Each structure stands twice: as structure tokens, then as C-alpha cells.
């Protein structure tokens, strides 16, 4: 189902870098003078955030990547809301 929320396109805010960090064995977000180590699900969602895909696309991709996880819309929206609150991303 398309809603205003799932049509939005999230992208990382300027100054944030998302990357795989071998020493942490995890995805991380790097920002001025700091780093957040992401757990697996957060890493999976952010790995789909490229400033072009909509939330609906991201959900679809993740559901394809993790079929055993079931429907993911609610979880993804929750996480993205949280990420926006932390000012890691904005959503157009």
C-alpha cells in the first residue's frame, strides 16, 4: 500500500558516511568526531538508502533479501523515523 510516508525518499544527511567497518565487523555511520555501530537490521536498512529509492522500494528490496522476516513496512518506517530524529537522514 502506498502512503505519503512510503513514497518518501530517504537520504543520508551531509557529513554522514555509511560504510562496512572490518574492525567492528559491522556497518557503521561515521560523522564529525564520532561513529555509531549499527546492528544488523539497521545496517541492512541503511545499505538500501541511496537518495533515489523510496521507502516502498527499500521495503520491497529488504523483503526480497530477507524473505524469512515477513512484512517489513512497519519496522523500516520505525527505524527511518528514528534515524531522522537522530538527524542521520532526511526524507524528501
Amino acid at each position: 500500500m502506498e502512503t505519503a510516508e512510503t513514497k518518501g525518499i530517504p537520504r543520508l544527511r551531509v557529513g554522514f558516511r555509511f560504510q562496512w567497518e572490518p574492525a567492528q565487523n559491522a556497518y557503521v555511520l561515521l560523522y564529525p568526531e564520532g561513529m555509531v555501530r549499527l546492528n544488523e537490521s539497521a545496517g541492512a536498512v541503511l545499505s538500501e538508502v541511496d537518495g533515489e529509492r523510496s521507502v516502498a522500494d527499500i521495503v520491497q528490496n529488504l523483503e526480497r533479501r530477507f524473505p524469512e522476516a515477513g512484512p517489513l513496512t512497519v519496522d523500516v518506517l520505525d527505524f527511518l523515523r528514528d534515524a531522522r530524529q537522530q538527524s542521520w537522514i532526511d526524507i524528501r
Partner: protein
Amino acid sequence: MTDNPNPTAKASGRIGPPFWLLAELTYRCPLQCPYCSNPLDFDNTRQELTTDEWVRVLRQGREMGAAQLGFSGGEPLVRQDLAELIAEARHLGYYSNLITSGLGLTEAKVQSFQNAGLDHIQVSFQASDPELNNAVAGSRKAFEQKLAMARAVKDAGYPMVLNFVIHRHNIHQMNDIIELCDRLDADYVELATCQYYGWAFKNREGLMPSREQLVKAEAEVNACRERLAAAGSLMKLIFVTPDYYEERPKACMNGWGSLFLTVAPDGTALPCHSARLLPIDFPNVRESGLSSIWYDSAGFNYYRGDSWMPEPCRSCDEKGKDFGGCRCQAYLLTGNADNADPVCSKSPHHDRILAARRAADHATTGLEDLTYRNPENSRLFFRG
């Protein structure tokens, strides 16, 4: 949805990798700030590391797991290979930060650093008023240039991050400083009262604000915050007050040899940028690899853990929180770096802090009486 990024090694007794690598590329600098944290005898240091030597250090640091990289100095812009080092840092996967006075920066340089993959730039100011700013920095052109460069950084798409060093001669200007930042459309503003190491320790009497000044400044900053928020501004204001007015010390560097690794211009590896003043033999990246420096050298293990602590820290239940404070401050104020940081009210040397506070109430030292950081003055601090 996040885990703690840096569980400190201490808890498990295991030493974790350095997270921060600070590359002090040079002690050369066109400015002469009297609060500079560089060593007093900076003019006595051996030859700077070459480009190849820095590249090797960056590689080794990244292999160990360092993720944040700072380029500082001195003024890092005087190094002609800065863009090259930034490109290498980006290639290795560092998040790179440039800490500059803005002097020597041009729009073309901002562009070339951006192309090389620089993530972040911080420009430091001395005060909001051109006269005072220039008096403190010991340079007349400095202020206009800094303003222009702050704008250029923002035009290039970076957040504008400004740092103002605050002391008794500009602490009354909080309103003006914040207004200037707002006009420039700054994103982050750090108002940092200077910390008393290096030249700032030498000049402490002439720099340290009185309690009265500090209280007034805090009220001004808070009022500005409210005004900005009401006007819908997103600018973030951080006011760092001097630990000389605290009763407990700061958890210096998050613990000795726990997250930070500084490499000085001549290759000396240090657990923090002022540790050079301690009577400890620190290793040099020209002689050993970074990994053996971090994990095995006597210098980096000197104050790891807590078995080195004398009383009152030894039996204190807060030692896991502040690690006994800052070793450099303990050394500067008590002559023995093992002691508790005298900022702590439990320290038998806390009277030195109280004396400094009293002195700040009555100090008459003017700007012209400060010892400015320049090679000539530096030579007074070593024989040669």
C-alpha cells in the same frame, strides 16, 4: 538499534584498537595564539615526517581499526601535500577532519580537498571583533580571511563548523560572537574556553576567566540559545567551560591509550597531544610500527589500567569514571604525573586550583603582556 561503538578495553582488561588518529602535520603556523596547545619548545623539533612516512602511518592506523582521522598542527595548510594525504585517507576509509585557522585557505583549496574526499572542516576564530581577534592571533589580515573561508566552506556544501577559543579578554563578547555566527549561517559553533596546557598554561593568569565572567557568559549563551530556537535557527551552540571551575576532573582522552593516538610532526606517537610535556619516553613512528607502539610500548602502557594510581584515586569509587583525570594537568600543577588531577576536590593539591581561581578574580594581565606563540619565544624554552 545501535550498540555502543567503543566498549572501552579497560572493563575486560583487553586493549582495544585506537579509534581516533590525530595527525599533527606540522608545528609551523602563521598565527601566534597565546593559548596554543603546541609544546613551548615546538621550534626545537626534528624534521617533519615526509609524505611517504605519513601515508605509512595512515595505513597502519587504519589496519588497526582507526576510523576518525584529524589533520591538525600548527596550521596543516602549510603542508603542500595535504590534498594528497586527504586522498589517501579517503581511499583507506577514514572519516577525515581538517582543523584549521583558515589562514592560507582559498576557495580552490577547499575545492581540491573536497575532490580528494575530505569529510569535514572546522575553522577556528579568536573572537568576534576584528581588532581583538587580530590582537589575539597576532595577525592583522586574519579576521577577514577567516570570514571569507567560513563562507567558502559552506558554499562547498560542508556544514559550517566554527570554533571560538574563549578567554578572559573575549568572554564578554558571547552575544557578538553568536550574532556573527548566526549572520554567517553557521551550523555548529563551539565556544571553548581554553584549556591550560602548552602556551595556555604559560599564559594562564592572563587567559583564565573569573567565576563571575563565566557565570555571566553562560547566562548569555543560554539566552542566545532560546532566541535562536524561537527564530527557528538550527545552529547548534556548545559552550565548553574550563575544568578549573569543576570539582571533579574530566575523563581525559577517555582513558590513557584507550581511543586516541596522536602523531606529532616529528613522528613522536602520543596518547594525547599535550603528553609530550610529560617526563616519559614516547616512541616514534620512524622507529616502530604503529601497532607495536599502541599495544606494546612502555609510553602507551604507562598509565593504562589503574594499578599505577596513588591515593586518593586508588581507593576511590569514581576511578572507573574519570581515570584520575588528566596526567598532564597533574604534572603541570603538582610536578608528578601520577597524582590525582588537582581539579578533583579530593586531591591534596586542589589548593592549586583554588589559587588559580582566586588569581582570576584579580588578574590585571593585559593582552599585550601575554607570551605569544612564535619561534622566537619558543627558543626561550630550550637551549640551542
